């Protein structure tokens, strides 16, 4: 009985509609992937600027990042998410991702 009461209290707080939960989870995962993609991109641009990479390496990094961006676009479309859905508001710290 106590477990029932507990569960009831939980559902009051959490919107447990399976579809919303799935969409929320997907956007959370994609947000983190997008964060990693942006970090990698910035790191790559910095290394290219340093000029220590061969042309071939630069080309390969560029292609990888380009495909990654395409893939992200496809995934977003697939789950019906807009680019601005992939973000987390960190309150006083501002949004996790800079507006793209």
């Amino acid at each position: 009985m106590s477990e029932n009461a507990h569960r009831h209290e939980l559902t009051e707080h959490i919107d447990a509609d399976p579809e919303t939960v799935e969409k929320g989870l997907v956007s959370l995962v994609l947000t983190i992937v997008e964060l990693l993609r942006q970090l990698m991109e910035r790191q790559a641009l910095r290394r290219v600027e340093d000029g220590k990479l061969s042309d071939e390496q630069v080309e390969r990094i560029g292609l990888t990042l380009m495909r990654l961006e395409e893939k992200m676009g496809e995934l977003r479309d697939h789950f019906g998410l807009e680019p601005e859905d992939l973000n987390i508001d960190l309150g006083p710290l501002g949004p996790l991702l800079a507006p793209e």
Partner: protein
Amino acid sequence: MADTSGRWLYAIARELDTDALTGLRGVAGAPVHVVEDAGLVAVVSAVDLAEFGAEPLKRNLEDLDWLAATARAHDAVVTTVGGAAPAAVPLRLATVCLGDDRVRELLIRRRPDLESALALLTGRTEWGVKAYADPDALAAADAPAEPGGQGGQGSKGGAGTAYLLRRKAQLSAREKAERNASAHADRLHRELAALATAARRHPPQDPKLSGRKGWNVLNGAYLVDDAKADELAAAVERLGGEVEGVRLELTGPWPAYSFAGVEQGAEEAAR
């Protein structure tokens, strides 16, 4: 009845014309009444603590429909009070005391702060100014015409290299636009604050809530002498035309939520 009944606070004023409150209903449709102590008048209404006590209130505040109805009722009373007194200190949503006596206690304990807040607000009005920057327009304004045309480095690379160079140009144009927009917002705030008795910058608004495109680079509140209200409007007009891609919006008059300055203490005292 008195035991289960709390008091929801709307505003505290001086020289309030209480006739203006006749028939006025507040949160949950309850009629408002006043609690007075030595010239300070608190406008309150009775609320059921089963709905508005600390615990149920916390739950209800997460219910957006409940919140919207409550906020509208609160705001309507605050606005009426503001129009019926030379100055009114608006209280933030959900300031609840346990009965009229506790409201009176609050008036006594916070008297110096309330008096100085009322003195500050008398004859002055709060206005809001928001600036929205359109990132694309800003970036286009000072970016080179063709993206990717950076030096001769890109000529020998393939699609991947071209992509990297394009992204680099985009990112640096964006960073520059952001820097420019934020420097411009600082300047706007300085100019507007010069016209105001007091000025505050609030955190930018979430575009999802405001439904507006673009960066909210300035979300300022300005407490302005009523005699200077026209000057402020003219300044907003003038500054809004200054920079391509930055739009200004003047809102108000507002209840002086940003400058009442007694909220923190009032909430603590209400507990």
